[in-house]
């Protein structure tokens, strides 16, 4: 029983990481109906930028601010130069564009910073916490707090502000929103900026948590996040978080109990199973 709980706990911890990474992706999908694979590229760049600024300044706050700010701009650039012009084509065209961007970013990181794993030893303002049999590391605490904070901010923005209302309108029907006088283009860019900032935050935190920053760190999140947002119901941010936690727990249990299923394939298997049963995904299209 205790083994089970430990596995569940570890799974939840991993799941929180997935949630942080997937949040921004879910926001972007909600507004543009595009599976933004390049999100993982922004995540990777965020990690490198954060590491670089931290190593120069020693300040985590500064590292996070710079990283999130620059990545917000990167995200908007990707949206403007790659996705927006391709919206009129079938959805897989921008998807391929996103994949191409991701690969290019991954390669640029490799060429710029080298293919090695760089460590990210950052001093966090937390102490390890003991909860009964469980041991929560400082970085885990940071991740949980940031994820909850981002979730709250996102909820507040979307349901309590005018901009959030605009975002919901654009998500429903972009042309209609424009016809109603909303600046859809700006709303889309804003969503990308916020989602990308979230990606950068995730990159830095995961880099610190695993103490590893390397060019291909985005590759598994890139595609696993897609499966996760489908499972959680496309466009639903809380759904994505729940699905992230679920996947984290399932993966953890599978490894813990030694089922012969490869861990990274699980999310996809679940996704395919969902698709076969409900072609519109869990939330329906």
């Amino acid at each position, binding site marked *: 029983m205790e083994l089970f709980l430990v596995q569940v706990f570890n799974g939840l911890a991993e799941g929180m990481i997935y949630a942080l990474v997937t949040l921004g992706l879910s926001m972007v999908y909600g507004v543009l109906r595009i599976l933004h694979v390049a999100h993982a590229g922004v995540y990777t760049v965020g990690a490198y930028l954060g590491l670089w600024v931290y190593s120069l300044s020693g300040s985590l706050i500064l590292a996070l601010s710079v990283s999130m700010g620059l990545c917000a701009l990167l995200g908007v650039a990707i949206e403007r130069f790659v996705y927006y012009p391709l919206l009129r084509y079938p959805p897989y065209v921008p998807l*391929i564009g996103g994949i191409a961007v991701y690969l290019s970013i991954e390669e640029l990181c490799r060429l710029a910073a080298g293919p090695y794993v760089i460590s990210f030893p950052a001093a966090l303002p937390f102490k390890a916490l003991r909860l009964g049999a469980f041991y929560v590391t400082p970085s885990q605490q940071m991740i949980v707090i940031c994820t909850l904070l981002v979730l709250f901010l996102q909820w507040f923005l979307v349901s309590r502000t005018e901009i959030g209302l605009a975002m919901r309108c654009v998500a429903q029907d972009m042309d209609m929103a424009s016809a109603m006088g909303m600046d859809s283009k700006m709303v889309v860019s804003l969503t990308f900026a916020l989602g990308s900032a979230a990606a950068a935050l995730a990159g830095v935190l995961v880099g610190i948590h695993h103490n590893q920053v390397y060019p291909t760190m985005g590759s598994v999140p890139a*595609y696993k996040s897609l499966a996760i947002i489908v499972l959680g119901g496309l466009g639903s941010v809380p759904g994505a978080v729940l699905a992230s936690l679920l996947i984290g727990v399932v993966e953890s249990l599978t490894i813990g109990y030694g089922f012969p299923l490869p861990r990274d394939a699980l999310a996809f298997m679940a996704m*395919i199973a969902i*698709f076969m049963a409900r072609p519109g995904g869990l939330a329906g299209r």
Partner: protein
Amino acid sequence: MGGYYLTVLTSIGIQAMAVMGLNVIVGFAGQISLGHAAFFGIGAYTAAVASTRYGLSPLLALALAVLVAALVGFFLGFPSLRVKHDFLAITTIGTNFIAESLFLYLPFFGGALGIGGIPRFSALGLTFGGGQLLWLVWGSVLAVAVLCHLFRRTWAGLALECVREEEVAASSVGVSLVRFKLMAFVLGSAVAGLAGGYYAFFMRFISPSDFSFPVSVMFLSMLVVGGIGTISGPLVGALLLGILPEVFRPLVDYRMLLYGATLLLTIRFQPKGLLGEGGLVERLLSRGGGVGSSRG
């Protein structure tokens, strides 16, 4: 012919073949497939296991590679009946990851170390090393190209194009979406399986990372650059993206970046590819006042 050129050209030939298979699925039938490397890998592993562990003759192993890949293609075609477009895209990405994971984890496939000691391809008493394999591969590429060309002119080929264009209208003229989507996947994966089989006999050693998602992206880039839906497109794409890094030796380290950037630029500015309808080459040719291709 120098060993280096032999290797590069054989490699390009094998890739071109795999991309021709992808062309049937994506170009003819309009179904998105971002996991094509899985079929390529299944062909390679089937040929490898059959010829090493079970001692089957390479010819038989190759035939088996085609059959097994086709069978898997049949099953992996089912998602295309339920989901479309970007959902189908991520499903195919998923199947690529699942296949790679299976290659990696199941001891039957040799795990992370892969399978080595694959014999040279031989058939009818002849052994195909170096130059002979090159001829065999390119001969097969040509044969596949001819078959694709002929297929497009049949009723089945016409039906596939209807599926690509307008599914609802296609069924209103008697085209069964189930039958033809699955047919596209079976044909496309069979060709990829053949390419994979050749790959096994060419490399003599295969491992799971040879069939990972970036390989699928590479196939797709070659198709997009060369012209989706055309007969020569896969060839042009494979040649361009295969030769460029070799020609500019210092660029080898930049190969993936090259693929990524080329794919990005092509999809951004020429989503139909260089050779396809409205593509760069076609526009250049028709400006020359003569050739102006059309795929009627």
